């Protein structure tokens, strides 16, 4: 019994269904034409071998009314652009451009340009939407150009030029930034930059002047060629390669240098290793991963470690060294992780649904939820128990030096109850069975291995 992938419905020529553990792509006649052209090309074989494009095998039978069915390998974890760091979106954009250039050389094109067609597999971007390839028809422009600017280029410019994170915007508007919006965001010093003039301001102006006019045929008859697409692709690549972001010092990049971090690191790793041996999880979620040290400890056992943290600079550094390590990087505020959203509220699923961990690490994090985000300890534990897997948790008492910094401006009556160790332990007993515990040398922190009741 197969179920349609709720995020795969926009393209009438190709959509994905999930059949147990299998990922099946169903094609109509037009989709089949694209697949034939793609699968016959050397470009496709090379791109699959290089890990740039997902593999696909044509099945002998296709269910009615499909013209053909392909099977893809199942990816271990799906993440969305609003959970990526700057370098991830940049690498994905460069892959999109690289593949378009190679596809054109092979007589193919990519009919859309959305980062949702790219996934990170073992720390490297991979294009997963085989249905996006189709034969290039002479004289056709690049249909995905506008989408490329909205969902790749403008978010990158927003971070690199404006200094504002793109993730909240991409999460709020799944289509990205419009040219008009980006034009309004441009800082003065970039307003007369050639790329800004063309891709942002001129596109915004032409969009407002030429709405609702069909022009593809006119372009073709005016002599449009694939060389113009290639020229655009090369300029976009040079622009995107030149983009860097101001790695704003926000107090977290130097977090690992804090004394309690280095002091407790080996004890926490040892405690985690025991739990990893006991539970042998295939999937681990590291909540508040910071520099990813404990994600790496988990990944070294062969698990997929999903490192979640709200601080992009440290995660970006982690991503840049994550290739081949088994660590997947997710930018996320633990007090507001990605929800299910999009069309009908199911097009993009929640982070926790996609992660479905076998074990959760919550080291050095619950005091930020309790004292930073003002979430009652009972609610924090209820949420962790709801993950329905063992939780390796670090309790941090209100007497801890780091908590003192968090509550320095709060009066005692402004804090939730349940944070003192004895109160916290009774909450733990309500929701979990404690299978192991260890007090850290500071005395204000205790590690727990917990199983939900």
């Amino acid at each position: 019994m197969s179920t349609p992938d709720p995020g795969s419905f926009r393209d009438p020529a190709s959509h994905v269904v999930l059949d147990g553990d299998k990922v099946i792509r169903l094609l109509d006649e037009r989709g089949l034409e694209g697949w034939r052209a793609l699968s016959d090309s050397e470009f496709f074989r090379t791109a699959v071998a290089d890990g740039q494009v997902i593999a696909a095998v044509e099945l002998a039978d296709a269910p009615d009314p499909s013209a053909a069915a392909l099977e893809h390998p199942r990816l271990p974890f799906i993440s969305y652009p609003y959970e990526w760091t700057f370098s991830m979106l940049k690498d994905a954009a460069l892959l999109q451009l690289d593949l378009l250039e190679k596809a054109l050389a092979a007589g193919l094109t990519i009919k859309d340009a959305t980062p949702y067609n790219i996934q990170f597999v073992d720390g490297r971007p991979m294009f997963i939407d085989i249905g996006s390839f189709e034969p290039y028809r002479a004289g056709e422009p690049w249909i995905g150009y506008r989408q490329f600017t909205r969902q790749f280029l403008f978010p990158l410019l927003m971070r690199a030029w404006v200094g504002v994170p793109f993730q909240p915007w991409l999460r709020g508007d799944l289509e990205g930034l419009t040219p008009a919006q980006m034009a309004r965001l441009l800082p003065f010093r970039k307003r007369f930059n050639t790329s800004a003039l063309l891709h942002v301001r001129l596109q915004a102006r032409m969009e407002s002047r030429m709405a609702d006019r069909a022009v593809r045929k006119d372009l073709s008859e005016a002599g449009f060629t694939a060389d113009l697409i290639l020229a655009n692709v090369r300029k976009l690549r040079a622009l995107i390669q030149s983009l860097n972001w101001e790695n704003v010092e926000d107090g977290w990049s130097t977090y690992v240098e804090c004394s309690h971090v280095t002091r407790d690191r080996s004890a926490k790793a040892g405690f985690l290793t025991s739990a990893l041996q006991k539970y042998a999880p295939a999937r681990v979620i590291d909540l508040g991963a910071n520099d990813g040290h404990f994600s790496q400890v988990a990944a070294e056992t062969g698990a997929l470690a999903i490192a979640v943290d709200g601080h992009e600079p440290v995660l970006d550094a982690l991503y840049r060294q994550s290739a081949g390590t088994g660590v997947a990087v997710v930018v996320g505020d633990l007090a507001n992780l990605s929800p299910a959203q999009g069309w009908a509220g199911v097009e993009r699923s929640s982070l926790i649904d996609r992660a479905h961990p076998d074990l959760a690490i919550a080291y050095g994090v619950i005091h930020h939820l309790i004292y930073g985000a003002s979430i009652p300890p009972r609610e924090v534990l209820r949420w962790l128990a709801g993950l329905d897997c063992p939780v390796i948790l670090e309790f941090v008492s209100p007497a801890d030096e780091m908590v003192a910094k968090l509550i320095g401006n709060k009066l005692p009556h402004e804090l939730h109850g349940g944070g003192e160790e004895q109160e916290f332990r009774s909450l733990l007993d309500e929701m979990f069975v404690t299978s192991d515990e260890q007090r850290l040398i500071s005395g204000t922190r205790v590690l727990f291995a917990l199983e939900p009741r």
Partner: protein
Amino acid sequence: MIFGYLDPGTGSLILQAVVGGLAGIGVAYKAWRSKLGRGATKPGPDGGNEEPVEDTAQPAES
């Protein structure tokens, strides 16, 4: 002309020719003229007058 499932944006389609460089600017100008020039008499690039073009007609060969 049947569009794909994605809205490519009319202005964005013409713009990408402009981004392509000098050759593209000529293409963009021709496409723009044949689109916006329909139904109206507009001076051509050489300053000469063009015949009015019906909305349903194919753009004139040049």
